[in-house]
């Protein structure tokens, strides 16, 4: 084979500059195929993945996920902390790489490190949930053992499983202790189905619980007259209740309506009259224990818009496509003490029997679903 020797001094300087530039460009591409050499490098790549957003440049994300998929087992738990500021897309990129890495080790994952992470409530809920999942796959007893301390956990998934375990533990108890355990579970539970399960059991055993109270629905409202919403024109239209002082709305002359519904619904068909192609406003005054951000959670089969202290919070122009507690959630700032909440609830002109409901339910919660608002009795309340 012929050997061509090149005298570097014979080459122009521009050649070496070009080579240097090329190597700078090529290096990241090469390193993208090589697993990280240090844990710090691995965490750095995990954080890059966790910040992914948008459709562009996904081949680069896939290459980074490939690198993470090759990590050694002992680096996986430390890398799970990268979920703490993950974007929605980033969380999935990161998970895709880490799950592949975990798959490589089967039942040889580092249990203690994972358990420590699960027990550290200051870490990302997603990272801890994933650690718990891996742990469960490898050592269910060890994972279950952690749940006793997770009843008040910031991870909804872990909290749910902790409540589930607590309720299961009540099976062998005599009734007074059983009830006590269930009440403890009720205080910890945030998922609606779990709350309903507990309340149902307590009711079966002679203890009635006001579900609307537990879930913190706002139940005292003032309801306006009906306005025109023929052909859906009213959703965007600004009627008088929207033109006044929205932070302190004048509801004199409005009808006081108190919900007696199990789930805190305000039935506008009952409050006004059953109508189609109309809308109404409802205003509630609530008390908040402190200033700051909280979630407005509303459910309605009708189109709804919400204002808090005069500021728009959300608007959903959807008619009769299901309804659920906490169907729409938006975060907004509240003042300490008195706040006003206004709902615009629009009914359309569908004639099907399942399109008759004209109602809403609303509560103010923290990010996990703990009710925060209270209501003082006002003159004229029902």
């Amino acid at each position, binding site marked *: 084979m012929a050997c061509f020797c090149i005298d570097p001094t014979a080459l122009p300087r521009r050649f070496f500059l070009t080579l240097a530039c090329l190597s700078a460009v090529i290096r990241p591409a090469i390193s993208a195929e090589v697993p990280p050499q240090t844990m710090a490098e691995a965490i750095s790549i995990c954080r890059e993945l966790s910040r992914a957003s948008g*459709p*562009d440049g*996904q*081949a680069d*994300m*896939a290459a980074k*996920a*490939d690198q993470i*998929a090759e990590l050694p087992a002992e680096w996986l738990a430390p890398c799970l902390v990268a979920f703490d500021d993950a974007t*929605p*897309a980033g*969380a*999935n*990129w990161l*998970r*895709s790489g880490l*799950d*592949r890495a975990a*798959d490589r080790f089967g039942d040889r994952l580092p249990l203690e490190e994972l358990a420590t992470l699960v027990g550290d409530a200051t870490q990302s809920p*997603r990272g801890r949930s994933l650690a718990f999942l891996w742990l469960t796959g490898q050592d269910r007893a060890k994972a279950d053992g952690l749940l006793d301390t997770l009843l008040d956990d910031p991870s*909804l*998934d872990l909290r*749910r499983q902790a409540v589930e375990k607590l309720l299961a533990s009540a099976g062998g108890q005599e009734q007074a202790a059983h009830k006590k355990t269930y009440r403890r579970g009720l205080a910890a539970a945030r*998922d609606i*189905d*779990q709350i309903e399960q507990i309340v149902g059991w307590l009711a079966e055993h002679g203890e009635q619980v006001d579900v609307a109270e537990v879930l913190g629905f706002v139940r005292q409202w003032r309801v306006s007259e009906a306005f025109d919403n023929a052909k859906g024109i009213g959703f965007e239209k600004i009627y008088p209740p929207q033109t006044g002082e929205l932070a302190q709305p004048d509801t004199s002359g409005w009808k006081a309506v108190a919900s007696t519904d199990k789930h805190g619904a305000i039935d506008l068909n009952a409050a006004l009259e059953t109508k189609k192609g109309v809308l109404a406003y409802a205003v509630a005054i609530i008390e908040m224990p402190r200033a700051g951000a909280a979630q407005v959670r509303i459910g309605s089969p009708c189109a709804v818009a919400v204002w808090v202290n005069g500021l728009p919070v959300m608007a*959903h*122009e*959807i*008619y009769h*496509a*299901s*309804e*659920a507690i906490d*169907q729409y959630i938006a975060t907004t700032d509240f003042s300490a003490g008195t706040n006003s909440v206004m709902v615009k609830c629009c009914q359309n002109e569908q004639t099907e029997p399942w399109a008759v409901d004209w109602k809403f339910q609303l509560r103010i919660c923290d990010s996990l679903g703990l009710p925060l608002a209270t209501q003082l009795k006002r003159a004229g309340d029902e």
Partner: protein
Amino acid sequence: MNNPNKTSRQIMAACVVAGFVLLCDGANCLSPVWGTGLAEAADASEWPEFRGSFGRGAAEDETIRSHWSETEGIAWKVDLPGKGASSPIVVGDLVVLTASSGAREDQLHILALDKETGRTRWQRTFWATGRTLCHPTSAVAAGTPASDGRRIVALYSSCDLVAVDLEGRLLWQRNLAIEHPRSGNDVGMGSSPRIIDDTVVVQIDCQGDAFASGIDSTTGVDRWSVPRAKIAGWASPLAVTTPNHGACVLLQNSRGLELRQAKSGSLEWSWKGECAGIPVTAESGGIFYVPSDGIAAVASMAKDAPPLWRSTKLSCGIASPLVWGNSIACINRAGVLGIADPRDGQLRGQIRLAGSFWASPILVGNVIVAANKEGKTFLVSVDNEPTIVAENQLPGTFIATPAVADGSLYLRSDSLLWKVAAP
């Protein structure tokens, strides 16, 4: 490495397009003539998307066993990690399906099983980034995944679209509910994605930000995106190849049809008329068989022309119509299977099945396979008058359309995937 199945499918598609050109007598030829040709070309070892190759729901060259039960004729059954209304697909030696789980149904699964053993080859799980409320009858994993033989794309009710390779490696994702914040439907979305001409087509019909997009199947970047009428809908896109416009996609909502070029999104044809919201239009020989108040036969590319025929005797409930050869079949809301002549809509025969049908019927050989929600799968011979030749019961609730490949039938219940052994 090129997947041989993909390559063969590309060749088949090329042959079909070439066939169009040969069959057309000049530039004014507007009638695509395919269906039978594709059926002959379809790879019997695969069922790569909703209702199989090209979405026809027909595997004329296949034969399946006639009798099975929980204890007889089952190759394997597999516990599923969550809920789903999506159909399994068969790609190479994998059976792929989707599911969702968790208290909020926000864990989105895509899993690949070994076709022979049912063993899990890989499973990937993603967090939903959009809404996961859903009617209890349906599921967040309602749309059937699609594969071009190199990658698998899955679309969930949360409007999350993910593409993975055949090893389960995430290639790209689109969080469409973040990009279109008012998209989605709390009854649940149900449209399946299609891969047409290297373009993943998604149809997001809802009362909020409705749209359709064509996405580069390699990069995950939009080739095109168009707004759609703000109407809820659950129909899936349908691949249609026309001689003048090449690979196109048919999009259906309750107000009509749109035919768009798959790669560019350019609108090539539209038709205004009542269409059903769930069952998908079928195409054969350049005619669209549109589920509406009955079935309307609409000549493709005809401008403002009335339907060739309408029949209210032939109507679809939720299940999509099935067209093959010289027959069209529908199952109505009462569970009656009707078979008619697609040339004039004249009913040739009908037979009452039992139960409710969410799954669409498929044709295997000369038998229609109709799986009801209650777990009974009817085999109906269509040689002459429709005749029930077998009824096979499995436990569970079945709303997913069956898949068939290599003589095996795949039936998904609410908790299990059953593989009915080949005869």
